């Protein structure tokens, strides 16, 4: 809940800134090395994120929602966070036209930091901002095979950031015919997207790559435009039946404008970004029961915000005046040319290097285990956010283990734990649960977890000071943030009761219900403490000062209505009660910082094999986002309906062409997300794709 952004309230500078057991139970033992019926019934490799083991939904230790390819295609989503609106309990929102936040059970600012987000097992959490920068990813819905969302803490499997939830995005690989796809999307606000992808093979290598470009003009009011280009590649090499090497590489670069949409006159600031990643994974099958995986990845993000250009000074000065800064103070601060400060703090260079060894064991029948150890090196270099030129780094070591034990044909016991340490803290996060199979179609699950999230490098080290210009000897004007290396881990103690119904038959469907209580304590918040400076004699220090209890119920119903129709209904009721201690600013309630109701409905009708229509509806009730709204002016409840009409033409050979008409906010009911002036009207897009 730390908000880098809060410091921008003090001065006018805009500071901006987630199966086997049933089969194995039925799977007879392996008799020596002879072929037997066990071999016929063996599992053909399903949800990995919940316990790092392939498991059917009914046997996962946590609530899991899958967004599959069918839902992705029907959703009319242009951006990945939009897909997450289909998950019960999750709130996805535009922070600006091209930046996003995704949180579980609310209580978030514009940089949600309590959810882990991974792409193919690689964390995309950015240490520089202690959040995910969705806009810097070279990832669009068409790239995604499925998204596995763990609703609730999932630390034993996905590490310390999976404090309130975890998202693993699995990209499409091997599930598309060999060949190429060329596509473009054109639409509202100058939206232009071009994309090329190709998948093929060369002797012993399987490969896939895609490249794309996107630009738009952003919100009419703020002109918060984006332009970016990206490239991703993936290669698989299989030297033997038991070994597989996967190499994933990619980069994206461009410029995005970000800012606070809480005043109509605010100036949005351009931030250039250069992001690249490398991921190498070796999967080795030891035998039927044992598997080893060694993975290394490296992420780097370089974000550049230029110092304020002279021509922007009047606007910044105007914004400064609205925030109570006199013109004298402004001159003191910026000088006449205003070139001393960066208008946004989203500036710096950050890297993550992560190495992990994972061991999986599946005994024939009763016992599944996945254990591993990992090492992560993170670093940040930023004169804007650390007030120092040198690189700050952190080293983390972790040990984790997940165990599922079949007590009887009906009962499965789950036990998992993560131990993690860095320079300042160490934390142990256990989870245990029981699954009871009421009938072959119905499962009950009871889980208890105690999750401790280590404070991030940014949260410990953030230090922002505003100094005067050279003529004033760079004297300290305002200390905005003071670092706090004494932070303790955040704590989430939760209990949940889950019910899963998967009726048999072709139109079986799925009903997934979760009742929960989450007690969050020692949560990080911005604490105002006295500090002698020339401006306000105080600074913000991140502090373990918030606590809240979230109680609620959420469900998802997925059902085929006929061979040509399916629908997915998601609903979450979440009641939050809590407070945050903001030091000099006093105690503030958190009760309305999460929407009480979040809902979505997706329906698709297939008129024929080449013509389909889908509708998506979203609802979020009133919420007072931290930093995005105030008690007096909360973000109002909104409804949004999207539609998509898609027509496919089969051309000669295997070639095909598709055109899709997409309309978002169909009924043109203007609504705002996160900030008051970050508003949206009806917008239309046309997407053309040629596959050959």
């Amino acid at each position, binding site marked *: 809940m730390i908000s880098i952004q809060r410091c921008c309230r003090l001065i006018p500078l805009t500071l901006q800134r987630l199966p086997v057991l049933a089969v194995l139970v039925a799977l007879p033992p392996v008799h020596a090395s002879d072929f037997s019926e066990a071999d016929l019934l063996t599992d053909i490799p399903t949800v990995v994120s919940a316990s790092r083991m392939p498991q059917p939904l009914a046997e996962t230790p946590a609530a899991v929602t899958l967004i599959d390819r069918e839902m992705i295609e029907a959703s009319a989503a242009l951006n990945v966070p939009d897909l997450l609106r289909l998950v019960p309990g999750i709130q996805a929102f535009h922070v600006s036209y091209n930046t996003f936040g995704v949180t579980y059970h609310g209580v978030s600012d514009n940089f949600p930091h309590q959810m882990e987000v991974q792409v193919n097992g690689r964390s995309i959490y950015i240490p520089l901002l202690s959040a995910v920068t969705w806009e810097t990813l070279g990832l669009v819905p068409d790239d995604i095979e499925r998204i596995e969302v763990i609703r609730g803490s999932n630390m034993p499997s996905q590490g310390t950031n999976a404090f309130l939830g975890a998202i693993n995005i699995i990209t499409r690989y091997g599930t598309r015919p060999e060949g190429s796809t060329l596509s473009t999307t054109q639409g509202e606000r100058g939206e232009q997207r071009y994309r090329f992808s190709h998948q093929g093979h060369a002797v012993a290598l399987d490969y896939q790559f895609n490249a794309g470009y996107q630009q738009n003009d952003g919100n009419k009011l703020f002109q918060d435009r984006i332009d970016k280009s990206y490239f991703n590649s993936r290669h698989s090499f299989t030297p033997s039946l*038991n070994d597989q090497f996967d190499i994933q590489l990619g980069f994206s670069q461009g410029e995005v404008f970000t800012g606070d949409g809480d005043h109509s006159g605010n100036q949005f600031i351009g931030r250039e970004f250069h992001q690249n990643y490398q991921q190498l994974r070796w999967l080795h099958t030891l035998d039927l029961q044992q598997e080893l995986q060694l993975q290394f990845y490296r992420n780097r993000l370089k974000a550049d915000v230029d110092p304020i250009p002279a021509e922007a000074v009047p606007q910044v000065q105007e914004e400064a005046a609205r925030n109570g800064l006199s013109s004298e103070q402004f001159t003191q601060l910026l000088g006449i040319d205003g070139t001393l400060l960066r208008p946004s703090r989203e500036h710096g260079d950050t890297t993550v290097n992560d190495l992990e060894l994972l061991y999986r064991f599946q005994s024939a029948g009763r016992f599944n285990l996945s254990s591993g150890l990992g090492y992560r090196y993170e670093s940040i270099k930023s004169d804007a956010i650390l007030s120092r030129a040198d690189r700050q780094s952190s080293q983390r070591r972790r040990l984790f283990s997940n165990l599922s034990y079949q007590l009887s*044909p009906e009962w499965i016991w789950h036990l998992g734990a993560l131990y993690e340490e860095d320079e300042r803290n160490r934390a142990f996060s256990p989870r245990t649960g029981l699954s009871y199979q009421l009938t072959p179609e119905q499962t009950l699950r009871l889980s208890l977890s105690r999750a401790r999230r280590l404070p991030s490098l940014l949260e410990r080290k953030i230090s922002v000071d505003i100094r005067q210009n050279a003529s004033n000897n760079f004297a300290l004007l305002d200390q905005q943030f003071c670092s706090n290396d004494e932070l303790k881990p955040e704590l989430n103690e939760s209990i949940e009761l889950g019910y899963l119904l998967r009726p048999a038959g072709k139109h079986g469907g799925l009903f997934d219900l979760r009742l929960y209580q989450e007690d969050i304590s020692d949560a990080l918040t911005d604490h105002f403490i006295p500090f002698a400076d020339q401006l306000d004699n105080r600074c913000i220090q991140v502090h373990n000062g918030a606590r809240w209890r979230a109680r609620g119920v959420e469900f998802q119903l997925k059902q085929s209505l006929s061979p040509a129709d399916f629908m997915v209904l998601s609903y979450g009721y979440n009641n939050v009660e809590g407070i945050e201690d903001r030091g000099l600013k006093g105690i503030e309630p958190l009760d309305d910082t999460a929407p009480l109701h979040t809902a979505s409905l997706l329906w698709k009708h297939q008129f024929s094999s080449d013509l389909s229509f889908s509708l998506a509806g979203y609802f979020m009730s009133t919420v007072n986002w931290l930093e995005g709204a105030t008690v007096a002016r909360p973000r109002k409840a909104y409804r949004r309906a999207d539609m998509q009409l898609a027509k496919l033409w089969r051309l000669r050979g295997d070639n095909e062409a598709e055109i899709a008409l997409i309309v978002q906010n169909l009924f043109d009911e203007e609504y705002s997300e996160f900030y008051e002036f970050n508003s949206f009207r009806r917008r239309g897009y046309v997407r053309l794709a040629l596959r050959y």
Partner: protein
Amino acid sequence: MQATLNIKRYILHLALLCLCCAVVPAGRATAGEILIVLSQDIASYKETARAISQHLSLQIDQTTAEQISEEDEPLPLGQYRYIIAVGAKATREVLNSPLTAPLISTFIPRRTYQQILSENPLHPLISSQQTTAVYLDQPLARQIRLARLISPRAKRLSTALGPDSSKDLALLKQAAEAQQMVLSHALLEQDSNPIRQLQPLIENSDMFLTLPDRAVFNRTTAKWILYISFRQRVPLIGFSRKYVEAGAIAGVFSEPEQIGRQTAELINQLPAQPGQLPPPAVPKYFTVETNETAAHSLRMPIPAADVLETALEEAER
């Protein structure tokens, strides 16, 4: 001290007796006419045994292979009319035990059963043809006929063979020829590069047939077979429900309940006086499963699963 030891031994015997009574509910005191031996006390075997019991009106006792091998108490030799061994392990344990009643091995792959027979040619039950089987795996002809029903114009059929399934190559070629298809295959070993071998094979075929081999082989090859066949838009016939769920366009297989039912019917048809048993039988009852998502992705309209099932049944009449 001696008295204490005797009491301990008495308690131990009492406990063992209670345990035996619990495991074999009908009890050895009132033995039934049929003894079912499960390879292990787990769902698939139990479902087979449940189906056998449902379709038989005889007195049935049930035990596991482990209990037979560890049994200290003498077994009621010759007391049963038939012994039904569910799975390979149970079949082996029964043949290794002093049990002498005619043996029906069920829920067992053909190759495994034949191997067990060839390993024990002098066993009295085998030499006197007092054994038979109900196989779990589908006859090759049925699987290839399913491929033909799904793709009537297919001419080139391909498959990947492992250390065990390679033994069926000649039979497989015969079955393919009977459906006017030319078979091509790749022999995969542990150090084979699956992409290098499967890619050209699948690329040059109209249909790919998966054959069960040892579990490690099945699991390690499945991913690449599914990936490459999908990319080349070559439909895949899976050998199990799991394979169809994972992406094969269709598959034919028998459920434990179906194998159990056939086993019970076999016993019901046997004469009251035990004689030679009939030859082993392929599964009579089977299920066809299709994957509509895979069919849609391959742009290949396929008949409904029940239509395919009926067509296979009619073709075998």
